[in-house]
């Protein structure tokens, strides 16, 4: 029986189970033993999905200390000899995974979006060159196989509930980081674009009228998103960027206003049920993925559609 270790998604604990899908794709359903390592107090959403839940005792390590967390994972690996260690590609995970790989002298594949099985080989798929192409990577050497997983790239559908064994990790951390958190300030954007079913996204074509998108988003109970172009120009915050260097989204409706649709932007579109693009160029790449292409200016489109919606609602 193969053993896989999955570190908690510290941004959304319930998403930790999605990494089980990765393990299933490597080893096959029911062919592995899963160990989840959690810093969080609440582990209810993970009960029944993992064979083992290892809770790190309170006060042992700061939740922002990659060195300390690495110590714990390294220790757990020495005891359990995992075949694979999967880490969510969150900002914390991105600092833990390479460090742990270095300590264990093993290879690490970052930002994994797919797994392909070919005979005995597991080919690990990740986007490279800003999402222009996909790379298939083989893990060589003795392992463990280590990956960081791109958030939202895998979705796990729970099977029959397991008898989860919960244990506590209490060994003191030997090398904590010399880092202190001074203060935390909430970001302007409170709604995560990955949670929204309706996304009103703007690109270079709406840089003059980006604020108009919020009106339409309000009317459709959606959230505003942006392409890299607007983020790089400082018009939109990084937290709402869709694409390879931004977020992967799967909304029911994606409205692309003035978005050209570069490879790097499309890399962030996963499961989109309906796509409407509004563009002055009907042959822009994004238009070929669209259900409807509105040929014209985005600002005029918003005005006209808003009028129509207002009329309907009154």
């Amino acid at each position, binding site marked *: 029986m193969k053993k896989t270790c999955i570190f908690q998604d510290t*941004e959304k604990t319930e998403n930790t189970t999605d990494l089980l899908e990765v393990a299933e794709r490597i080893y096959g359903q029911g062919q592995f033993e899963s160990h989840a390592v959690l810093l969080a107090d609440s582990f209810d959403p993970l009960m029944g999905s993992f064979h083992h839940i290892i809770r790190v005792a309170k006060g042992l390590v700061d939740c922002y200390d990659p060195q300390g967390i690495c110590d714990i994972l390294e220790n757990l690996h020495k005891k359990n000899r995992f075949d694979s260690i999967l880490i969510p590609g969150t900002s914390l995970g991105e600092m833990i995974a390479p460090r742990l790989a270095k300590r264990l002298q093993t290879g690490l594949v*970052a930002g994994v979006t797919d797994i392909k099985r070919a005979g005995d080989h597991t080919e690990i798929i990740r986007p490279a060159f800003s999402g222009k192409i996909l790379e298939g*990577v083989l893990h060589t050497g003795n392992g463990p196989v280590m990956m960081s997983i791109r958030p939202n790239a895998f979705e796990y559908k729970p099977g029959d509930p397991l008898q989860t064994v919960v244990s506590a990790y209490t060994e003191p951390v030997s090398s904590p980081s010399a880092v202190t*958190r001074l203060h935390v300030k909430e*970001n302007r954007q409170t709604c995560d674009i990955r949670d929204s079913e309706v996304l009103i996204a703007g690109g270079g074509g709406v840089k003059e009228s980006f604020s108009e998108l919020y009106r339409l988003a309000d009317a459709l109970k959606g959230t505003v998103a942006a392409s890299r172009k607007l983020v790089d120009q400082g018009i939109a915050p990084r*937290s709402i960027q869709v694409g390879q260097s931004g977020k992967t989204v799967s909304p029911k409706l994606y409205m692309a206003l003035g978005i050209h649709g570069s490879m790097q932007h499309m890399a962030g579109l996963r499961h989109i049920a*309906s796509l409407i693009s509004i563009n002055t160029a009907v042959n822009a790449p994004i238009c070929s*993925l669209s259900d409807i292409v509105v040929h014209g200016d985005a600002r005029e489109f918003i005005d*006209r559609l808003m009028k129509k919606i207002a009329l*309907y609602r009154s």
Partner: protein
Amino acid sequence: MKIICVVKIVPDVDSIVCDVENNILTGNAARMMLNPDDACALAFALGVKAGDPDCFVEVVSMGPMSVRPHMEDLLRLAVDRGTLISDPMFEGSDTLVTSAVLGRYIATRPFDCLLTGSHSLDGGTAHVPVQLAETLGLDQMLGIIRIDPHQFDSTRAVFEVEDEKTVTTYEMEMPCVLSVTRQSGYKLPYVSLSDMRRDVSDELVIITNQDLGFSETEVGPTGSRTKVVNRYPKTYAKKDRHIVGNDEEGISYVFNFLKQKGFL
């Protein structure tokens, strides 16, 4: 204060052509550039130096000799020392090996702080800054959007990191590795005309494996633990798009679509 900036010269991704049939990237033909995140890190270091003439800034990069002109361009800024680690033996090294090579050189140099970019344009893994820190036994932070210049000295640094929902301010003890993102907006100064004409070809320090002494099995593809075996183009399922005008008829079509799908 002594700062080492670790940078990478990367292909401009927009100019890369992927030859899928032969599984090669025609990256050699691509335009090369200083990785944007790394440029921000260097820009911050040069800003510190501008306010403190005693500050010493070294730029270190690992890459093929073909990136030499790009490294020389950096020497035309106010950089005190430029070092290119280059040896055919190192070609094809993964991040684990790269960080070991960089680490072995940097361990021989004096520094209070290592500054790097967070992500590279080509690989985009952000492994090297983290693994370099681990190699040197240092603390490290990714995703820095601002470093407080008034609280940045040989004892500690105070800086801001942005993630999903928050902007967090941290204080970290030196020496450490700080990795900056493009969002910091730090910009490199322009090169003056006289510097542009300056011959700097003697100034760049070239370090090879003769200086570092790795065995052949430790570096390059044999020393690496990951191997890229395939490259796939990205494909998307095309839809039967319906093109409408931005007029009454077109708006009605969109409106009815939204209504039918339950978005209104």
